[in-house]
């Protein structure tokens, strides 16, 4: 599923002329035309409804707290003098926000890399290695995809306490890896299965170990699947709030946690929350615009979580 048009041109024998429906009467054509205009208007209105909230946040983040409490963001469109980078400059001096942004990176990158790596090994075993109970094991792993994180947070909080990683970045990462794995295994196993069997058999006959087949044949062919999975997992972890609230202390907390702490006094902290929230959105939005195709694949595949 991509944003590229999915229309397939109709095939017809050479030398024939397409026979369409008879040309509709004037009244009908006019109705279609008007319908077309209405449709365009509806589409534009819907687009506006969907764009304005984000636009509003972006503009609000560029206005002073005083301006924001006095009037709506749209007044800045008529009065561009209101726009200022002050809030963002102030954010550069805000240690809590800067550290939490850095923590977000520290949590997201390993949690993504580990899920892709561990998931790829397991996916390969389930796709191309024979062992008893393989299909059964796969079904169990698939079932784990929808398990709500709530059902595991209390025990894991205690377990991490015993292991000494409660409150650390490590604990947050471990939890995200655990709950990212079922989907990773599901996606990768299914993708690996689509690779031609002959390719693997040939590599095996050449004397390659399974590790070599996996690393030299399967992985290089699986770029799109790995990318989709990585993007989904990246967004999932980057955007998470619940796991961070439970498993991170404030000095190890990601940006979502830090901003949530500011929300109690929303109006007076809008000069921190606005730019902070917008900064936290920029990375996912960049990923979205840069890797649209994989992004859509990943999000659709991961929507069951």
């Amino acid at each position, binding site marked *: *599923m991509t*944003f590229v*048009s999915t229309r397939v041109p109709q095939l017809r024998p050479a030398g024939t002329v397409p026979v369409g429906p008879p040309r509709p009467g004037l009244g009908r054509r006019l109705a279609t035309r008007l*319908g077309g205009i209405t*449709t365009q208007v509806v*589409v534009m209105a*819907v*687009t506006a409804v*969907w*764009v*304005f*909230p984000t636009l*509003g*946040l972006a503009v609000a983040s560029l206005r002073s707290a005083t301006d924001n409490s006095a009037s*709506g963001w749209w007044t800045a469109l008529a009065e561009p003098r209101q726009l200022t980078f002050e809030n963002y400059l102030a954010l550069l001096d805000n240690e809590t926000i800067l550290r939490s942004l850095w923590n977000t990176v520290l949590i997201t990158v390993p949690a993504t890399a580990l899920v892709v790596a*561990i998931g790829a*090994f397991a996916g*390969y*075993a389930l796709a191309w*290695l*024979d*062992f*008893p109970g393989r299909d059964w094991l796969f*079904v169990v*792993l*698939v079932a784990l995809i*929808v*398990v*709500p994180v*709530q*059902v*595991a947070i*209390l*025990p*894991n909080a205690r*377990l991490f306490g015993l292991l000494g990683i409660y409150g650390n970045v490590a604990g947050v990462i471990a939890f995200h*890896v*655990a709950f990212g*794995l*079922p989907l990773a295994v599901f996606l990768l196993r299914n993708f690996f299965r689509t690779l031609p069997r002959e390719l693997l058999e040939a590599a095996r006959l050449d004397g390659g170990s*399974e*590790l070599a087949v996996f690393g030299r044949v399967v992985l290089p062919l699986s770029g799109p699947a790995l990318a989709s999975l990585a993007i989904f997992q990246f*967004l999932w972890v*980057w*955007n998470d*709030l*619940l796991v961070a609230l439970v498993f991170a202390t404030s000095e190890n907390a990601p940006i*979502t946690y830090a*901003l949530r702490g500011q*929300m109690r006094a*929303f109006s007076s902290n809008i000069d921190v929350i606005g730019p902070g*929230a*917008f900064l*936290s959105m920029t990375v*996912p*939005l960049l990923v979205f615009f840069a890797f649209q195709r994989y992004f*859509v694949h990943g999000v*659709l595949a991961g*929507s*069951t979580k």
Partner: protein
Amino acid sequence: MSPARRHRWTAAAFLAPALLVLCTLVAYPIGYTVWLSLHSPDGSRFVGVANYVEMFTAPDTRRALTNNAIWVVVAPTVVTVLGLMFAVLTERVRLVNAFRLALFMPMAISFLAAGVTFRLVYDEDPNRGMLNAAIVAVHDSFSPPSPYPGATVREGSGLVASDDGTITTGVPVTAGEPASLPLVGLPVDALPAAAEPARPPAAGPGIRGVVWRDFLRGGAGRAGLVDPGELGLPGVVVQVVRSGEVVAETRTDASGQFAVPELAGGGYSVRLAAGNFTEPFRGLTWLGPGLVTPAIIGSYIWVWAGFAMVVISAGLASIPREAVESARVDGATEWQVLRLVTIPLVRPVTVVVAVTLGINVLKIFDLVLVLAPEPAQAEANVLGLEQYHASFTQLNAGLGSALAVLLFTLVLPGMAWRARVLRRHQVVP
């Protein structure tokens, strides 16, 4: 070693990290949570199903259950229907990509960011909140706001302010004797720019008088009399009433004067209509009692409609063109084609979307936590939020775990249904 045996050992090695993580951090905790849910808050005593009983009887959790039920019914339905509409729309417009991008973009951002975004949208003050600003603009274009909200009578002026919002002269008015209607309580700069200095009412035929702001800065001026510098109130709707019947209606001019020359005799009263003084419409309290859950569901719809649209679009694209074309050749209108051909063919996809969203909605947490202001949190409560508070605010591991088990149980039917669909499509063995 035979290939089969070799495979087993390799498989064990390849699967080991995943299985280790999943067993310790997912499987074992599920069991532990079930155990905790049957024990007292500190885990010391077995209490049977007491936590489950509390879950279904305590007001907080019942509120959460009710709200979750609302969420599960409303959100997936609305998102799926909108997704279907948008998917059909994108079949027939230019600039499809811009439209799809705009709708799908919210999927990239966190519920926290969405929550912050919608705090701004839902701000109660129509000067700041986009939604209320829009509603007030539409409302005022149909019924213009009253010119003098909050105006009241000056005590001792002889005017009577009624509960229905009208202001009436206390003593009967006779033709030829001008009436004075002094008002106060208007902000200093609240008068229309057209307002001119009031003149004392001049004698003349009919019912006449003046409505003015009986107030001068600094408290100068005499009560009930038109002083130099006091402004008339233009555009006030004035009704002349006799024995309960409105016999004439007029408006004041720029200096606050009104006159109905054709009336004669006495026993009239002059009434200023309530519409002159009603408070302006300020929109709705979106994040307050009554509306907070629908408002949060609204922001959820904003996040997920793009998802539904993209999935259903793909479903539409796979509909055989001949089915649609032949219906058109048979003379079906576009609407009939949509209702009788397209929608039935795309129904399986919409069901998948709705169930997926249903599972997702059950676990909703961040959006409610972030978007509902502190005073409205209890009213907006959902299972995910209550589970978090029970576990980490009230430190009641028993109740928290019972709620987690409930969430898990509620997700199971959706999971089983999905497994069946996947199996049918041979995605899983």
